[in-house]
């Protein structure tokens, strides 16, 4: 036997179903009794009972609606039911109420599924954490872990907090946060997120965020905000609905005044409810945003989603987006000196620079043994076996100047060293021999970036201001360093997928024409713009928009924030750890996974169509019903049935996006 309490709880949670069911049984019984026996009074009593059981909750809400001066569907349904009883149409009254309560129950049930799409994410965070305090392991509630606490996570456990690994190594499944299914290898110093799953080894994590201050919680909050923000279509419909409902009531009164047909005007009340119209678009958008969140794509809101549905061109920043963003020295050619010497010289000059090409050069120099090779071409392989020498063993330059977008000028051993592109050498009056130009061209045609290393022929006498380029042939080119940033494996397929979806692609890069052309060719992209400075990228995006394109710009969200902001839709990649990127972008890919781009773009397009389908279906239904009512083909009950069916149809259609 169930206790009274559990019966009560059961009733409370299943109230809608019980009410709809009881009303349905009474309705069927009353109708059957009247039909089979013609026992009209009894039948009428049962039908009225059905209307009261099914209508009590509706009428209660209607009362509150009227009291708070909002005119909703429940007010209209109550009016219709009361009106039907008043004119003796008991069967109609019971039918309307039963169909409406059944429809509401089914709607509530399906909407709950949409609303629960994020629940799975929430459940990913464990409730307790094992913390090392005073040399002992303690089990504490996860939200009470403090920043700096050391949390021990065993293999197979979910990580309870955000933090940095300080001990141990493991593969972590980060799908709840980034949507990536492949586990990510974590070693000391690397960041882990609450809700992700530690798969292999025990790790110790120094907490940086717990409770509601974790990346996962922030994502969930943002997704909810996005789902709550109205899209332009939704606000138009909402504004429309505010006038529509009173309009329907006026129409119904007018119809009664003209025709004196009470059933007709009551039917108008019921079919005029803007149900499917107001419910359709939000369901589509909430489902799409929920689906995206589970795949590691954060959409800012319905507005951005609707705009993204119109994208016809995607611009990619090259470095770190189409490529891995890990520039490595691929080849060094010495001219008149050994390649090692050229590299060493370049490393000295670039040591203080923070440019990513400088980092690659210094890194390569550290991995060189320093032993002389054949003096010619030598590939650098920074394999794990060779122990890199300390950065400190590379001498500091005497004087150093960055020429933005061109290279650096430094002094070493009393001689000026110029490391940079052709423009810089031309400016400095350095002659480029044919052999050097040949070599540079060959590397650039492979999509590599070539940097010249030139040195003053004779000592200029210390590190005075570097501006003496009046002496002819004062410098000679001693080497060229070729560098390569590997393409992401997924890049060509992603570009092909976008092309299949009818979307143009453009690559934006600071590389020179030849390198850019080679990379564009390799990745199969439609178009490229080379030799761009950051503000140049922004200008290209603006120009593309002026040409009439709806432009999405993909970048890391930090260096290219201006061009992301200039685009119709800014998409930031690898945003899991960076709040700035999430702030500036309209869409953020939590993982560094390029394949999410075609997914996000096609999902947005599908959502846009889904919204149109729902609005179209709703308008078509109301129009048809209206025509049917005015020509007396549609009765009150049939009107209600079709109306509720159309609401369920738009919800079901919208929910398809949850499984997109």
């Amino acid at each position, binding site marked *: 036997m169930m206790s009274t309490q559990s019966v009560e709880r059961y009733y409370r949670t299943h109230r809608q179903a019980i009410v709809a069911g009881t009303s349905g049984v009474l309705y069927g019984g009353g109708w059957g009794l009247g039909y089979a026996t013609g026992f009209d009074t009894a039948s009428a009593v049962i039908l009225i009972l059905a209307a009261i059981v099914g209508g009590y909750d509706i009428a*209660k*809400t209607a009362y509150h609606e009227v009291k708070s001066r*909002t005119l*909703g569907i*429940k007010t209209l349904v109550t009016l219709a039911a009361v009106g039907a009883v008043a004119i003796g149409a008991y069967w109609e009254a019971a039918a309307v109420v039963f169909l409406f309560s059944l429809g509401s129950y089914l709607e*509530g049930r399906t909407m709950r599924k949409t*609303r629960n799409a994020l629940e799975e994410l929430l459940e990913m965070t464990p409730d307790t954490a094992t913390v090392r305090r005073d040399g002992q392991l303690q089990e504490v509630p996860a939200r009470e872990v403090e920043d700096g606490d050391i949390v021990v996570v065993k293999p197979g456990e979910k990580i309870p907090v955000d933090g940095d690994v300080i001990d141990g190594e493991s593969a972590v499944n980060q799908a709840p946060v980034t949507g990536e299914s492949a586990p990510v290898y974590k070693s000391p110093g690397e960041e882990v997120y609450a809700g992700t799953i530690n798969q292999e080894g025990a790790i110790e994590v120094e907490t940086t965020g717990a409770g509601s201050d974790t990346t996962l919680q922030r994502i969930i909050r943002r997704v909810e905000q996005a*789902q709550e923000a109205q899209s332009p279509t939704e606000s138009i419909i909402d504004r429309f609905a505010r006038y529509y409902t009173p309009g329907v009531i006026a129409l119904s009164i007018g119809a009664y005044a003209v025709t004196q047909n009470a059933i007709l005007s009551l039917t108008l009340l019921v079919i005029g409810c803007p149900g499917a119209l107001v419910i359709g678009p939000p369901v589509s958008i909430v489902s799409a945003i929920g689906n995206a969140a589970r795949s590691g794509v954060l959409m800012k809101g319905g507005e951005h989603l609707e705009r993204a549905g119109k994208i016809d061109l995607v611009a990619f920043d090259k470095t770190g987006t189409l490529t891995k963003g890990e520039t490595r020295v691929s080849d060094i050619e010495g001219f008149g000196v050994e390649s090692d010497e050229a590299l060493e010289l370049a490393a000295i000059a670039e040591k203080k620079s923070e440019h990513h090409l400088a980092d690659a050069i210094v890194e390569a120099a550290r991995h060189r043994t320093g032993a002389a090779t054949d003096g010619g071409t030598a590939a650098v392989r920074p394999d794990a076996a060779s122990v890199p020498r300390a950065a400190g063993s590379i001498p500091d330059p005497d004087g150093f100047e960055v020429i933005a977008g061109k290279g650096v000028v430094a002094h070493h051993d009393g001689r000026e060293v110029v490391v940079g592109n052709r423009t810089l050498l031309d400016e400095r009056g350095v002659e480029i021999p044919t052999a050097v130009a040949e070599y540079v061209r060959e590397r650039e045609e492979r999509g590599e970036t070539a940097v010249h290393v030139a040195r003053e022929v004779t000592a200029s006498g210390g590190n005075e201001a570097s501006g003496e380029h009046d002496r002819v042939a004062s410098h000679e080119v001693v080497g060229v360093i070729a560098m390569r940033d590997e393409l992401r494996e997924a890049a060509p397929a992603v570009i092909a997928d976008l092309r299949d979806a009818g979307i143009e692609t453009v690559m934006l890069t600071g590389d020179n024409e030849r390198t850019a052309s080679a990379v564009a060719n390799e990745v199969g992209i439609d178009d490229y713009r080379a030799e761009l400075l950051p503000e140049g990228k922004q200008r290209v995006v603006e120009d593309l928009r002026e040409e009439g394109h709806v432009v999405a710009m993909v970048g890391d969200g930090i260096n290219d924030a201006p061009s992301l902001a200039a685009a119709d839709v800014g998409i930031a990649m690898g945003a899991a750890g960076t709040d700035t990127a999430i702030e500036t972008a309209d869409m953020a890919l939590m993982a560094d996974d390029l394949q999410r781009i075609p997914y996000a773009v096609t999902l947005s397009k599908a959502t846009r169509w889904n919204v149109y389908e729902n609005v179209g279906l709703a308008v078509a239904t109301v129009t048809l019903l209206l025509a049917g009512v005015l020509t007396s083909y549609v009765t009150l009950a049939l009107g209600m049935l079709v109306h509720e069916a159309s609401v369920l149809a738009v919800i079901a259609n919208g929910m398809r996006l949850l499984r997109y």
Partner: protein
Amino acid sequence: MSETTQLRVLDFDCPTCASTVERALSNQQGVENVEVHYTTGRVEIGYDDSVADPETFARTIENQGYTPQPA
């Protein structure tokens, strides 16, 4: 003192229902601002805790015919 509390209602069946609940809550004494979201079912109530009793918020929602849950 101004306080904020959250509740969740999973059985809104139309956007108007959400706005009815929003109005009912705002009419309650001591309630400063209310946000009710149909799409997520999230109810956020800002209130003056010297005047309003947060215990009554759930009852107000129940009276409107919906089932509030802790957020």
